[in-house]
């Protein structure tokens, strides 16, 4: 590990100041991803600003929905009564990720900022535009079984690894951040993460020094008809081949609102809006689920080793919808 400065911030203002003033500085909370990346030499911050003493751990009702603090632990968030009752999709998604030990350390803000698990990104001997812009992408012509089928670019085909983010995308959460000027701004969840485009080094739309303070969950009518399905190579502690967050609001036998987001398929949590459109106003039937699944995967562009994700994605959507509606 290279030497770095370690600063403990007493409040959000000083934390943001500290990172803003140093282009090589990073916030650290649970550290469950950043420390790994530092040991591998992927991240080499010159300063870590410890934010674990900040008072951002609340989970509380707010404006008809729930506000969850950036520093609340993943475990505490998943098991909080407000979340279990009103946002079971989020509980399922968080618990599908990582392991109990990691979830006990990981914070909600950190979960949103975890970096891709593309193995070429992790191996500093390999070319990677995300790690070192302009060096090329070893994954494009490599073993890209775990990579993107939506929204990739010729610079990067990595996927976002977070399960929690897939549920938050489906729930239309809003991320509140605080900047160097002391002002807060709100970023709709689907605009928080980025597609790689020409700048895959940027995972999200935060400015350097901006600190996530909370995630706002709007009032939801999905609690009784939602499901998070994760398909992976082993039953626990594996990243998604494909995951699906499905949430429906049913009224009079018809689907009034539908949300479908996918993980393991793109550089950001992927909202399948085409599938949602297919479902709205229709009955919750297997036939309509299949039509939605087909619509969701229509624009998929697979790579050499991940063609299976199209069929798997369709099946996962159907199964998630079945389970969301109590049909399996």
């Amino acid at each position: 590990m290279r030497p770095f400065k370690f600063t403990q911030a007493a409040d959000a203002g000083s934390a943001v100041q500290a990172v803003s003033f140093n282009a090589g500085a990073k916030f650290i909370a649970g550290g469950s991803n950043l420390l790994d990346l530092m040991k591998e030499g992927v991240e080499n911050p010159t300063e870590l600003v410890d934010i674990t003493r900040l008072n951002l751990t609340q989970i509380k009702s707010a404006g008809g929905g729930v506000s969850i603090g950036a520093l609340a632990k993943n475990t505490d968030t998943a098991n909080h009564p407000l979340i279990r009752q009103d946002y079971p999709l989020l509980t399922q998604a968080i618990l599908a990720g990582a392991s109990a030990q990691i979830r006990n350390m990981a914070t909600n803000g950190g979960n949103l900022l975890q970096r891709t698990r593309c193995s070429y990104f992790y191996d500093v001997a390999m070319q990677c535009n995300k790690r070192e812009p302009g060096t090329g992408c070893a994954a494009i012509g490599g073993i890209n079984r775990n990579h993107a089928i939506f929204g990739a670019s010729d610079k990067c085909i990595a996927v976002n690894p977070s399960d929690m983010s897939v549920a938050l995308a489906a729930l239309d959460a809003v991320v509140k951040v605080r900047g160097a000027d002391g002002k807060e701004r709100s970023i709709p969840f689907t605009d928080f993460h980025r597609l790689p485009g020409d700048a895959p080094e940027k995972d999200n739309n935060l400015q350097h020094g901006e600190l996530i303070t909370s995630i706002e969950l709007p009032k939801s009518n999905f609690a009784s008809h939602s499901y998070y399905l994760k398909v992976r190579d082993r039953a626990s502690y594996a990243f998604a081949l494909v995951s699906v967050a499905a949430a429906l609001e049913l009224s009079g036998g018809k689907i009034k609102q539908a949300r479908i987001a996918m993980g393991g398929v793109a550089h950001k949590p992927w909202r399948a809006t085409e599938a949602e459109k297919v479902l709205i106003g229709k009955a919750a039937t297997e036939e309509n689920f299949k039509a939605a699944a087909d619509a969701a995967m229509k624009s998929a562009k697979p790579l050499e080793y991940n063609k299976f994700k199209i069929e798997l994605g369709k099946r996962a959507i159907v199964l998630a919808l079945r389970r969301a509606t109590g049909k399996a």
Partner: protein
Amino acid sequence: MASDTKVIGEAISRIDGLLKVTGAANYGMDWPIRNVAYAFIVKSTIAAGTITDIDTAAAEKSPGVIAVITHKNATKVVAYDPMRGIGILQDNKINFYGQNVAVLVAETFEQARAAARSIKVSYQNADSKTDFEKCVAEAVRPANRNDAVRGDFDAAFNAAEHKVDATYSTPIEHHHPMEPHSAIAVWEGDNLTLYSATQVVGGVQRGVATAFGLKPEQVHIISPHVGGGFGSKGGAWTNVILAAMAAKVVNRPVKLAVTRQNMFNSVGLRQQNRQHLRVAATAEGKLSALGHDTTQFTTTTNEFAESCGILATMMYEVPNSRVGYKSAAMNVIAPTFQRGPGESTGSFALESAIDEMAYALKMDPVEFRIKNEPPKDLSNNKPWSSRATVECLKRGAEMIGWKNRKPEPRQNRNGDNLVGYGVASGSYPSRQSPTSTLLKLARKGDDVTASVELAASDIGTGAHTIIAQTAAETLGLPMSKVAVKIGDSALPPAAGSVGSIGAASFCNSVADACNQAKTELQAKTDRKWLIAPTVAQLMDAASLNEYQTRVDAKAPADAAKYSSHAFNANFSEVWVNELTGMVRVHRHVAVTGAGRIMNAKTARSQVIGGCVWGIGMALTEESIMDPRWGNFITRSFADYHIPANLDVGTIDVAFIPEEDQFVNKLGIKGIGEVGIVGVAAAIANAVFNATGKRVRDLPITPDKLL
């Protein structure tokens, strides 16, 4: 007191358990050594070629760095092991991606690792062989390996009415013991002490002595506890040599641990195998021909081949068979022994093909196997010392509820899961290897204590405990009066904990030493006994407070007249999600006939371990090499998927009682290797029974079942 001393076979917890759960057991890196420096290895980033330059200037100035060792300034050492010894910095040649190119020594581990990143290596690339698909096309029969032939395979296969002709693939797997490889090297003059966990104390001692031109007794290996090995700790890999070299260069003790990421290219692997099986049978279900052709890779510098076809030569009564091998040279870290070397991967292919044959014949696969049970070992015409395959199959069928199996696939459901049952049988040879034991007895009045000393190793499977049980029962002492000293090259030489020879070699030697002590003590007195005397009485009669004796034990002369193997049967019940293809082993049953079971608890644990790894082999484990460069992209446990708790359903283990009078005096067959043999095939066969899809390419990941 009799109940205290009748301990062989009992379910006794490991006597080293308390040390381990309290952290008091010292593994390789745990020894508190004063003034120790830390070493870190730099790896090559090409698979073949030469180093043209290494720029170490920045690293040498890096904080805490004491020395930078490259091929330019390395201590001269002798090539000591063509398999394990590639990468000891003696020249500028690169044979595989991740070969050692430099060693940093610094005051702390972190300083050594940080400095390692500033070393710049320039290479001249040569054509590299890193694409298995391309290399297998050039595979040839190894010079030292003839086909094993019985009858006329081609004629019988061609004439047969019912045939299976299929190819099965298994990927590269890595051993990944919980304790990665490490060594602490301490020189005193020309004498070297190495604290380094190993399965074979004498093997590491000989390797290091050869490398440094020392007599074996100048190299002292200390390895009382081993955090798993599975074949990867069978001798001195380069990390041990480089630790000793670094300690010599900096003239102080050095610790060198292989990082988990570097375990992929430092201490061997299980090679990728492609196995072509051809099976023929009569309509009545008698096997008539069996062909098993294995193609695998080896390195460009060394030949190593897992014996995948060995089971095909002896598991079934089949008059015509041919078993052959081809290998292709690749630029890769050397393949080496890995749990059930040959048998575990071979059984996946053979037992899958047998299942396919039974299905084609519309026969129950358990009955099909029983129907083709051989009366003797047809590979060498020797009688079995004992063989419990049929009992294992029958008992296992009962335990798993085989009667619930439907012969046709996709007939058994539970919600959106398809349920299937599968079976496979297996075996692994049994052998006793030369092992010496020093027994020391000490008496205070009626109180006798024993110290049993041999250079055995305990790889976490319970060797300490079964040695103590053997000595206690043979001497008639409670186990608390027996001290076990192992894992030290200064002790009498012993077999390694490899190839399932440990239990038979250690325990027979220890029993011989104990019996010899009683006989010798008896000879020192003319006292007559109405009932068998205790050791205390014997020592008293001989007027001795201390006594010691040593035996050099080896296999009984008649053992070679028999074919001795442990046999097993595995049964699996899998649930496969019909939509996602995710497979869960809901229940697994392993029944083993392995002669005398020395400790019901540690034996059960060892078989469970085999089942868990077998689940990994079947469903999750695969080391993936990028064919462009020969690097592994599965460099951590996030990518190399060993089974998690949730992947492992209920595992039931049973042993068939067996008294084998021929294998060795105590009738011990060994269980370490056989525990994994057949597990993956039973699961794959269950997946077929569940889904109707025959996956011949491990691991069975969800995408293969869509």
